[in-house]
């Protein structure tokens, strides 16, 4: 059993008030809050060993390099990558996806096909559209059903020897659906396609074992797992990372430079041009330590309780509809009340101190699918409480009485 009151003590922000009410933070799918342990790691870096890494011979540079590389090992261990150099630091999931998309522009030909799921975040659609424009490849969509589950039968039909890449999120940010990525990966491999899984929404809730999954690329952002913004990671199988050309040119990513020719550094530095987010990388490691200290199994179990309770209570409200009712889902609830625009609901909830997301959640195709302008999305983390669910319900009822 998690001691939620004790856990909440770790998060200074949870003590603040918003509009004169205690903050009820239910926008965890957008970004998670930061525990003191991670804040301390950030402060420690700037107070004690801030220096540029991999270059200096001086002590501070050595210390910073050590901590930064230790954090990479923590990430490697967490995702069970075979090699530490298969973990590339990026600025986050969007950067990771662009890095892979850019790399594939050298590997794709006209007539090749890329498959993406119908429940993708914009960041997982636009880079592939751009890639298709550059290479003449075609983008095809794996559709979903009314419950917000991928149509695996159609997926199988879409796969063929032209398929070179499959992109899918592990968990949908707008609907909370946990996608059957093992099956997606296995089937893609049978036709020789590579698979990139966007783990941004999955990383806060479960641990992905990249070797067991046999996934080619996996990515996530630190800020959704109690880390800071502006840092994330891309896991890539060594053979794939060697095949892809570098994404950005700059310092750190070179072995030798003359005006005639540059040879690139080995992995992972080939993809890490310029001075990285050193503090961010170290804090990313601290965030994984924190989350693992609590335990992902316990987190998943508790969040599931919150999800079940919130779903049950929300459905008691007349006219309320939940979007995304997959059998396997995480603690994300997208909903609307008939006759109420999600922005109106969100505005009033904000006045009551309740932070939810409203709008299309950067997933307009999903909203088009359901023919709605957007939804109100409440997403729960392990530091949320049953009492906070009750406050949400009371808030929704209050807003409903004002708006209808």
């Amino acid at each position, binding site marked *: 059993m998690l001691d939620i009151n004790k856990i909440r003590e770790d998060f200074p922000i949870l003590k603040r008030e918003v509009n004169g009410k205690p903050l009820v933070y239910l926008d965890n799918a957008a970004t998670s809050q930061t525990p003191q342990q991670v804040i301390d790691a950030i402060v420690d870096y700037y107070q004690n060993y801030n220096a540029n890494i991999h270059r200096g011979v001086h002590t501070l540079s050595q210390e910073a390099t050590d901590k930064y590389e230790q954090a990479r090992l923590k990430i490697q261990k967490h995702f069970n990558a075979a090699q530490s150099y298969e973990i590339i630091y990026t600025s986050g999931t969007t950067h990771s996806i662009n890095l892979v998309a850019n790399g594939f522009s050298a590997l794709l030909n006209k007539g090749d096909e890329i498959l993406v799921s119908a429940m993708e975040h914009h960041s997982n659609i636009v880079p592939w559209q751009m890639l298709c424009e550059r290479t003449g490849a075609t983008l095809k969509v794996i559709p979903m059903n009314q419950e917000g589950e991928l149509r695996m039968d159609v997926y199988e039909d879409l796969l063929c020897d032209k398929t070179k890449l499959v992109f899918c999120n592990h968990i949908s940010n707008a609907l909370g659906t946990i996608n059957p990525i093992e099956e997606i990966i296995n089937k893609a491999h049978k036709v020789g396609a590579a698979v990139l899984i966007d783990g941004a929404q999955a990383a806060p809730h479960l641990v992905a074992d990249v070797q067991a999954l046999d996934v080619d690329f996996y990515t996530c952002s630190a800020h959704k797992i109690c880390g800071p913004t502006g840092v994330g990671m891309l896991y890539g199988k060594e053979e794939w990372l060697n095949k892809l050309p570098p994404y950005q040119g700059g310092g750190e990513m070179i072995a030798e430079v003359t005006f005639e020719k540059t040879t690139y550094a080995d992995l992972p530095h080939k993809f890490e041009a310029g001075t990285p987010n050193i503090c961010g990388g170290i804090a990313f490691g601290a965030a994984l330590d924190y989350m693992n200290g609590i335990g992902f199994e316990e987190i998943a179990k508790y969040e599931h309780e919150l999800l079940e309770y919130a779903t049950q209570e929300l459905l008691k409200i007349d006219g309320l509809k939940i979007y995304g009712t997959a059998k396997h889902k995480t603690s994300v609830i997208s909903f609307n009340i008939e006759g109420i625009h999600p922005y109106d609901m969100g*505005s009033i909830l904000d006045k009551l101190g309740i932070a939810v997301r409203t709008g299309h959640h950067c997933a307009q195709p999903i909203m088009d699918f359901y023919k709605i302008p957007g939804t109100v999305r409440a997403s729960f983390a392990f530091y949320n409480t049953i009492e906070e669910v009750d406050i949400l319900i009371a808030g929704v009822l209050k807003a409903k009485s004002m708006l209808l």
Partner: protein
Amino acid sequence: MEIKEIQEEIIDEFSMFDDWMQRYEYMIELGKSLPLIKEEYKTEDNIIKGCQSKVWVHAELEDNKLVFTADSDAIITKGIIAILIRAFSNQKPQDILDADTQFIDEIGLKEHLSPTRANGLVSMIKQLKLYAVAYQTQIED
């Protein structure tokens, strides 16, 4: 009534409210009473860019005065438009152009809006003024 007087009247009304809840309730009421735009004018062309919810505005010249009708799919947004329309509709284009929008700050509307809504508000005012420019040119021609 002149724009300035109407604005004073709106400021007076809003000064009676003690808290945001009453202001929101009032805006929602205003939204519900907004003179609706004719269905035929709810076109893509009449949608104001920069608003998170859909907002349509239509302008028509009657006796050299500009008459605005509008609608939105979000009720609080409708309330905001209702306030703007009350201040600017049925006025001469030149007067609309000359009018300042200080009253928005004075009724504390912006501070009660999310940044996206506040941006939407700016877009709405800009659009009303653009209509005024267009029709003023038409009158001068």
